[in-house]
């Protein structure tokens, strides 16, 4: 396998009893890339990450992280990576500074390097002046940045972030992504799971997981290109549910989904115009307020991918 890739995954699977949590997934991640893992809860994102970090043993298949086989040498992997879990696992009874020193001690950082990295973690997390605050007294956003700082102390070349922004306010979330961009610019590979679609937009490439399988993979633009031949229109109607039922009955409409108070309809081709649709709806007694073509969002992509995966699963 190539060393230009930070992570190479080949038919990786994990069973829990009879339950197939991860089902023969394959992908690779280039160095310096921000790779997003998208999926509903229970889709297998965390299980995959935990296998790649050497926390869970793969049931079959193989994976290489920084050129090291995860199945054969999990401890070798651990020396090369940083990991931050969705719980922001810190020692509650330790202060900010003590948590940093503890992580540093585990990686054997001492002397000038320790002072340097400690300053980095405090600076990055905006934690200066809070060194003596107990971790349990920190608000969510600070905890999250402290946990990230601890995971980056030893300057790992690959970082795994498992839902790093759960339960954090939007401002902190944006700040956190700025940090991730910074890491990537410095050549660190970041593999991040999330279920926020706006965050996924910021990734170089996105993998969508569904029921343990990789349902789609590619750059955001590539994923959206599936809608090049299937335009989306946004229908604003007084009664969106009624509009949805009417649209579903039309042969030119592939499928519909509810987006807040509007309905997104995926059309089967580019021939159908908004005016035609509007007329057809009016004939069926649906009062349409507006109907506009829209650019596909990642949410459209996500729903589309899940639909197709489920159809494939049912077939």
């Amino acid at each position: 396998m190539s060393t230009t890739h930070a992570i190479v995954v080949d038919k990786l699977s994990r069973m829990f009893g009879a339950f197939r949590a991860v089902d023969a997934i394959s992908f690779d991640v280039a160095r310096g890339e921000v790779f997003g893992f998208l999926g509903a809860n229970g889709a297998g994102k965390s299980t995959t990450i935990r296998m790649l970090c050497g926390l869970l043993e793969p049931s079959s298949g193989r994976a290489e992280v920084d050129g090291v086989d995860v199945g054969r040498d999990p401890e070798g992997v651990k020396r090369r990576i940083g990991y931050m879990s969705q719980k922001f696992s810190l020692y509650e009874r330790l202060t900010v500074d003590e948590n940093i020193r503890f992580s540093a001690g585990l990686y054997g950082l001492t002397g000038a390097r320790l002072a340097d990295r400690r300053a980095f973690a405090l600076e990055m997390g905006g934690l200066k002046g809070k060194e003596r605050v107990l971790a349990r007294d920190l608000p969510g956003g600070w905890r999250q940045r402290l946990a990230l700082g601890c995971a980056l102390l030893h300057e790992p070349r690959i970082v795994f972030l498992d839902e790093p922004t759960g339960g954090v306010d939007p401002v902190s979330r944006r700040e956190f992504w700025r940090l991730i961009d910074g890491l990537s610019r410095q050549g660190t590979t970041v593999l991040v799971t999330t279920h926020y679609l706006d965050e996924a937009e910021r990734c170089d490439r996105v993998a969508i997981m569904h029921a343990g399988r990789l349902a789609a993979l590619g750059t955001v633009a590539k994923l959206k290109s599936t809608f090049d031949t299937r335009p989306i229109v946004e229908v604003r109607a007084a009664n969106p549910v009624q509009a949805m039922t009417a649209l579903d009955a039309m042969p030119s409409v592939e499928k519909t989904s509810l987006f807040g108070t509007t309905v997104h309809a995926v059309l089967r081709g580019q021939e159908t115009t908004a005016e035609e649709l509007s007329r057809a709806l009016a004939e069926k007694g649906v009062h349409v307020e507006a109907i506009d073509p829209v650019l596909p969002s990642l949410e459209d992509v996500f729903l589309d991918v899940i639909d197709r995966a489920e159809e494939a699963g049912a077939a």
Partner: protein
Amino acid sequence: MIGRIRTLVWKEFLELRRTPQLLRLVLVAPVLQLAMLGYAATTDVQHVPIVVVDGDRSPASRQLLETFAASPYFDVVGERMAPSAIDDDLERGRAWLAVLVPPRFGDDLARARVRGTAGPSIQVIADGTDANSSGVALSYVQGLVGQYATVVAGPAARGAPQLDGRVRVWFNPDLESRNFMVPGVLAVLLLVVTANLTSMAIVRERETGTLDQLNVTPITRSEIILGKLLPYSLVGLVDVVLVIAIAVLWFQVPLRGSVALLFLSSLVYLVCTLGLGLLVSTMSSTQQQAMMTATFFFLVPMIYLSGFIFPIENMPTVIQWVTFVIPLRYFLVIVRGIFLKGTGMAVLWPSFVALAVWGVAVVVLAVARSSKRA
């Protein structure tokens, strides 16, 4: 390796310091407990409440009942007129024993003394619900009545040769059960406090997610176990010093053997109890589960089957085999030996070796169980 362990130990102490409730419990509780339980854990049966029914009311019967009243073993809590009146006393638990002297007791006794035949018998009714205490109390009654008979018989009765038994009791001449029980309580307390402490140590980190965080670092399993074992050993040693001080200074239990040996064996014992806690911790997924496992599968069976209270030699053979896997058993032999008998390594080495083997085995097992990967 040394650096990582030092980091872990440092962190563990910080956490302990930030949990003053726990620290207080671990340091103060054993002292209070030993002070209390040292008094309570006595198998001596004393002040047994009894009621008496004197159906004779002769000088002889009164003299007999006087012996009961004068004995430290019995407290006469009441005298009843009729035998039927004692039912209520025993049912309510007011009295454990009823002593009934039959009518014409004095006359029968005098006749038997002259003729050399068997004399009258007195009836003793015991509440058998506490079988042990009742059994002991009954044997006291036998003894008291026997003494009384000897006094009454006087030198004239020495018709047949008698054996003069010269009994000496070693190690504990006053038969103070406290001298036996206090070292035992010490051993049990150490087990309960230290095993509990570590049984939570790893599950707690599992529950809060910090164990995963540790597991993605290059730290090894044995480093994790050692990093937990070392700080808690120190806490345990402080406990050892405290409880030994209480036993010697407060309870005046004679410490006849080597103090150094006592500390050395306590240290080995601590490895066993702390290692046991860690093993439980690695086997559990929640703290509640760890606590249940520690208490029910380890602490309680160990306390009962170690010979702390119930002598092992009375147990069925199969269960005696089981007791061989209980470290408390060996430590009890060692502490009781050092305290009461002043025995040294020459005698105690088999128990010492057993304890050491057990300690190493349980720590190795804990390391083996504490997989860094699921």
